[in-house]
């Protein structure tokens, strides 16, 4: 179990630059997620780590060992492929035993290990099934058992749940987390699904469309303190509002054309936070309280007209048009079983309240 260090790696396909001077440290023993939009180069990065592609420039380390040009079959890094890539001519047992047998492990130990693994992934009793007779979730679990069979230092998972339906996906996510805890292997999980990433990761890296890492942090850090508009938008829903900063003493004000001033609280002042600078603020929809009544004890207040109301089960989404014509989203938890007394409908005039701590200032 060693950490992965990626240093200034570049890679291009057909003269198209996919990864440009990318550096990233993946700590050992963690469930690490690479989250990014489709086609941003995260699979390419994974293939570089597994050795299925070689870098154009840069270096990759596994612990202290330089594995940049080590062939894939020598690396102690295994992959769970997106389409599983299970061997169709082998049974479930033989698929899982593949890497052990290549290593020349004795058949007795192979049997012991494979049966143990199959029990862990809940496939006991299906050892001799053919791959084509398994369901998607079962195939997924075979792929997982196969990849983990020879105890890799790093397990790479390339959107392994993309082909499964919603309920199965939730279930498999929890199983993956359990497995990671059991094996203590470093998991590098690739996904474009932010809710998956938030659920499973110890820490994650967000990649943008250009294949650059925007931010690295825990789920909470990423969600609550996004470092850029891209991250704020990509992970969860948010309202991005453009405005100008004013700093007086230690108070920060955020001025928006046509809306007035907001109070902003910043835990740690950044160098770019200077008076008169044009910046953005991110405000999560669920941090806004929407009400027809007047309320006290909120640092910021806005007025708007409800455009439409979308009932989403656990919450209701309100689309509100502000005085300056901009739209803002607000989520309200549906805590009560019966409709709230205060029923907000389209065309209603509403007050929006939020605290200054809930605003995140973003440079870009």
């Amino acid at each position, binding site marked *: 179990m060693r950490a992965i260090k990626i240093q200034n790696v570049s890679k291009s396909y057909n003269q198209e630059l996919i990864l440009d001077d990318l550096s990233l440290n993946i700590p050992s023993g963690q469930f690490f997620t690479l989250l990014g939009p489709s086609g941003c180069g995260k699979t390419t990065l994974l293939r570089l780590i597994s050795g299925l592609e070689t870098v154009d420039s840069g270096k990759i380390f596994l612990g202290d060992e330089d594995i940049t040009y080590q062939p894939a079959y020598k690396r102690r890094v295994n992959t769970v492929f997106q389409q599983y890539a299970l061997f*169709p001519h082998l049974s479930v047992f033989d698929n899982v035993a593949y890497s052990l047998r290549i290593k020349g492990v004795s058949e007795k130990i192979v049997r012991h290990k494979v049966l143990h693994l199959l029990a862990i992934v809940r496939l006991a009793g299906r050892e001799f099934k053919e791959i084509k007779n398994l369901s998607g979730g079962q195939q997924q679990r075979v792929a997982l058992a196969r990849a983990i069979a020879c105890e890799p230092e790093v397990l790479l998972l390339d959107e392994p749940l993309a082909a499964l339906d919603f309920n199965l996906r939730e279930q498999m996510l929890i199983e993956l987390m359990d497995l990671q805890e059991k094996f203590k292997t470093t998991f590098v999980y690739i996904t474009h699904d932010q809710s998956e990433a938030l659920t499973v990761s110890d820490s994650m890296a967000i990649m943008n469309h250009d294949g650059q890492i925007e931010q690295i942090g825990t789920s909470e850090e990423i969600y609550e303190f996004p470092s850029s508009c891209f991250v704020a938008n990509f992970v969860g829903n948010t309202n991005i509002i453009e405005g100008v900063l004013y700093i007086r003493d230690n108070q920060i004000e955020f001025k928006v054309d046509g809306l007035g001033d907001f109070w902003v609280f910043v835990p740690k002042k950044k160098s770019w936070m200077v008076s008169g600078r044009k910046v953005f603020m991110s405000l999560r929809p669920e941090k806004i309280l929407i009400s027809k009544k007047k309320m006290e004890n909120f640092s910021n207040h806005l007025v708007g007209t409800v455009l439409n109301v979308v009932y989403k089960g656990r919450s209701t989404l309100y689309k509100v048009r502000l005085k300056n014509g901009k739209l803002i989203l607000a989520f309200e938890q549906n805590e009560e079983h019966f409709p709230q007394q205060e029923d907000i409908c389209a065309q209603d005039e509403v007050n929006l309240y939020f605290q200054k701590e809930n605003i995140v200032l973003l440079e870009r």
Partner: protein
Amino acid sequence: MNFVKRILQEEYPFIFALPAFMWQLFFLYLPLVSIVVFSFLEFSPLQGFLGFSFSYYVKIFKLVYLKVILNSFFLALFTSIICLVISYPVAYFLALKVKRFKTLFLFGLVLPSWTNLIVQIYAWFFLLERRSIISKLLCYIGIFSEPRHMINSYFSTMIGMVYCFLPFMILPIYTVLEKMNRSLLEASSDLGASRFVTFRKVILPISLPGIYTGLLLVFVPAFGEFVIPSLLGGAKKAYWGTVIVDKFLISGEWRSGFAIATVGVLFLGLFIGLLFSVFKIVKVLKTKRFKLKIQASKK
């Protein structure tokens, strides 16, 4: 009655398969069955139909005919093996390594077989005779001391056979390899297999159905081949096919011809059936033994 009722009620898909079944019956089994039946019938030019008899089988119950069938058997066997050895690399590179002009290469492979077989064979005459380029080249290298005829020999027969049957081996293997999911190769190398191990444990087993098909497609017609051995082999050796042709076209002993044909088909069927059953039994026994071991280690 019950049987008919059951067929109509439960196995009605069978009814939809009837046209295909009839087609097989008329075009495949009927001719074959008629050959077998005719081989048992006795006619006399004057009295007509005399009845069933084994007389023609008794007539061909000679060591010569066994030798003829064995000749054909080995000719087919060698042809299949040589074809396999040559075809596999070709199919492999065509399917997995060649990126562009794939169709062109495939087209080039089958193009020669579009010409008439006789023309193809006579082309080899010019290549294998004494004054041919090949003969001169071999002389030049020093393999031959003087220019030699290479036709009318087992060697030239084999060349003709392999040449004609090669596409039937390449195409099925190529098809299987082409269809193979490439990510399996990546998965294999990811799991620690070198290229050679990947070939042995993934590519080769997956291409086995193609190899079996190719062997069947080459072996069966090669067993009955008569044009190539009689033209390129100089009719030095008798084969199953050549003997049947002789019986029908030259000596006019049709009944003996039918009998020889039947024996040959029987021989072929038995051989292939035996091979298949041995494979099957070995496979079943292997899995059974393995399952028992698994059961044992579970306890």
